């Protein structure tokens, strides 16, 4: 499931979490869980920055053949 999250979704969720924490809408109990999730999202987003999309190179191959 984690693999399928897009960077846009990840960023949105991240913004939401940080926003929630900023607004103080988070209890101490859920803080660690939220921070953990946010860290995971940050990692996903950072990976997205440098990862290249494979399907595009496949298209390129396809175009060369035709």
């Amino acid at each position, binding site marked *: 499931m984690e693999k399928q999250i897009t960077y*846009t979704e990840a960023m949105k969720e991240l913004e939401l979490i940080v926003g929630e924490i900023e607004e103080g809408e988070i209890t101490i109990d859920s803080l660690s869980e939220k921070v953990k999730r946010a860290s995971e999202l940050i990692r996903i987003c950072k990976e*997205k*920055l440098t990862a290249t999309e494979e399907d595009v190179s496949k298209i*390129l191959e396809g175009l060369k053949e035709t």
Partner: protein
Amino acid sequence: MTLSQLAAGITVVLEENFRSPLWIKAEIAKLNYYPASGHCYPSLVEKEKGSVKAELRGTIWANDYVRINSNFLKVIREPLKEGIQILFRAYVRFHAVYGLSLQIIDIDSSYTLGEMAREKMETLARLKGEGLFDRNRQLELPALPKRIAVISVKSSKGFSDFINIIENNPWKYGISCVLFPALLQGDKAVESIRSQMELIGRYAHLFDAVAIIRGGGGEVGLNCYDNYMLARDVALSQLPVLTGIGHSTNETVVEMIAGYNKITPTDVAYFIIQQFHNFSGRLNELHENLATIANDILEEEKKRWEVFCLELATQTENLVRNEKRAILELSGSVIDGTGILITGQKHLLNLAGLKLSYKPAGLLRESRTGLENHWERFFLHVKQLLKQKNSEIENLNHKINLLNPVHVLKRGYSITYLNGKALIDCSEAKAGDNLTTRLYKGEISSEVKSLKD
């Protein structure tokens, strides 16, 4: 009259009526340029509401064509081409074989420029009227434009500049580009770009943006980007279009319609990279905020907790103190109460003790008299015994006193000592020995003269 006689007659009439060259407005429907000879035979038309109202053949001789065309390129940055409105100066010619034609000796390029500008305005007005003008700009560029469909020419400088920046970005941003080769200037560019746009449209789900990249091809032949059909395709593209057509004159319609006109290929590349920077920056910002805020919350909670603990301690101390005081007060009254109780009980005990003392006292008294009787008898017995022993000792003393030599000495006896020893046998002494004689009172020293047994 022969056909040639008629033709000659027409020629005379025309030459008489159209002796000097005339300024005429028309559209070039077909250019019909023959590079081998250098001559040009444009088909000139006048249209009204789409239908042809008049059509005449034109002739531009090679030397005229070179002059006119270079002027066009200089002023309009477009060659003479089909589909443009021209104001030209021409002789009306009639030839027995080739018929009627207009020999063009000059074309007013500024008129065409104006016409093109007018057409451009009309195209823009039409696109606006159709609600297409802002269409592409309203598309949201994904935060990370990672997959770019590039319409360009592989060998062009513009494309290589673009790819170089994208692929060698030092931040290692993962951007994939797929090239859709097309002609990028001149009349054929419209169809070429449109067909690639159509192809990209079919793969739209695989791309984040389209980039039209041109550069290094000179500044001529960009009129294609004012073409309504091409502009329309760009406007209707499902993907945001980025343009880097790289010219320095007026913005073309396609550039106006495109979501992001960055003018040069390198600017398009930097723009894409910038999106990644923005994303990365926002990400880092969120990361920092997250850490700071989370720490703040924890710190605040800790402080709150400390305050609470302090409060708890104070409250507890107060409570304990109060309870202590209460207990002290209570114990005070308990002691008082107990004191009273004890006094009462003591009194009772004393009474009881008093009662109790009568009996034992009697018993004691009896015992004491008993004991006293015994003691008296024992005492008398001991006394008697002592008296008896005393007289016995006295007798003995008397006897001992009688034995004391003093009493013997008193009666005139004396003791003779030789060398401190009582001399009992005279054989122990010899003449000349010094003797000491002890009397009752005093001593006599003497020397032995003779001995007698």
